[in-house]
């Protein structure tokens, strides 16, 4: 069949009664694939304060602050408004303190709401 006048029409009519390809997004959510780079999650207990992640972060979204003077204890502040979800910190961390979750709806009304603290 080599229809030369309206070659697209059969395809169009065939799809008239087919299920649309659209995903009704806010009502139906599709699962994200494994290994999706969502938000950065830090296990602050594993942190040794080497600051490699702070130096490597392309968006300067990570702050590591020493909590106590005597012990080696750190808290990590993630500025999620700057984070570009590249997961370089996950790769750089020598103690595997970071991982990425599957969250993809990260919008907020204020950039201050996006600051996350891990202790």
């Amino acid at each position, binding site marked *: 069949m080599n229809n030369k006048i309206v*070659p697209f029409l059969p395809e169009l009519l065939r799809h008239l009664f087919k299920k649309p390809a659209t995903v009704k997004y806010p009502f139906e959510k599709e699962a994200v694939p494994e290994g*999706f780079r969502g938000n950065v999650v830090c296990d602050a207990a594993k942190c040794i304060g080497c600051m490699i992640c702070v130096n490597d972060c*392309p*968006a300067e979204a990570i702050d590591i602050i020493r909590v106590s003077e005597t012990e080696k204890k750190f808290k990590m502040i993630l500025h999620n408004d700057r984070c570009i979800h590249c997961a370089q910190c996950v790769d750089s961390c020598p103690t595997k303190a970071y991982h*990425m979750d599957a969250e993809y709806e990260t919008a907020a009304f204020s950039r201050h709401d996006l600051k996350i603290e891990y202790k």
Partner: protein
Amino acid sequence: MEFKVSLGPQHPALHEAVSLRMTLEGEIIRDADLKLGYSHRGIEKLAEERTFTQNIYLTERICGICSHSHTTCFVQGVEQLMELIPARRGLYIRTLIAELERVHSHLLWLGVAGQEAGFESFFMYTWRDREVVMDILDWITGNRVHYAMNTFGGVRRDIDELQKKKILDSLDLLTKRTEYYLKIGANEPTFVGRLAGVGKLSREDAIALCAVGPTLRASGVPMDVRKDDPYAVYNEIPFEVCTADSCDVLGRAVVRVKELIQSYKMIEFLLKNLPDGPFKVKAPRKVKPNEVYSRYEAPRGENVHYIKSNGSDKPERLKVRAPTLANYTATIKMLKNGFIADIPLIFAAIDPCICCAERLVQLDNPRSGESKVLSFSQLRTMANDHYKKVNLLKKEAVWPF
């Protein structure tokens, strides 16, 4: 009667801010000019203040569509500076992502061509099928647009057997659909009528005006960095350089569709011949002083990065020549003596990515030859003064110039 019309910086046909100044005579364009500089981002300057690792993600953000192209171009340049031989498996995966990216970029372009020609159904269908390759990329890299796959010495993620199988399965569907679109594109009379014979660029002009990518290949010049100066593992993959002789927008579409089919074959080859071994090797943080010129065949054409290192962990200079910049002069040539109706098609046919090509040009005072540096507050006062003047003249001004 000749009159001037300015298309853009805001115009439905343009996806980014650029201004096309047209001198029209009825429906025919007598003269064309391009005004750039609406979306300058200062990426090259920013790159000088970041480490090489950080710059991988910065170069990725030069372009949303060819994000892998820019990182690969940057990364292979820096690898050369580091005198580092990347892992073979890593190179294969890097090439695989590059070809997947070419597939998604060309499918995107097909849709855009349909949309610019007013063929909305074609746009919807190609973009629906583009989702297949987007899903693959999402699945193997962790993101749909910014894959963040490259690192010095290889790639950041491995590909397992399950992913391999899924990609091979999807390839069948994509091949079938692409052949179908080739059939539609070549047979739908209204669509062919819009594309054929539009935006002529002869072989000589294409070479003289330094066109790159599908624009050049559609003028019958088989020039492709993947063949001429193979990087990554392109010297091991069998593929053909696709060309067309029609020198028009239809030719550019045909070249892209043919390249899609070549890309499917290459992806299949890459997956079937994926070597075992590590996918990355460890890279040093500091780079010896040197300079390098890295070439890469992006979906839009030849992409060039010039990197100069000074012994620290930051580049001294990064210069990016995006393919769009090389095609601008050819676009002006193509636009002249065309119809207004063809402007969006001709302009879209080079697959413009305006942000990628925006660079700052420092202009000296043409009379005295001296250059000056202005602070932000000075610029602000200048702008305010300018608009005060414009407001005063508004009543007498003849629209739009």
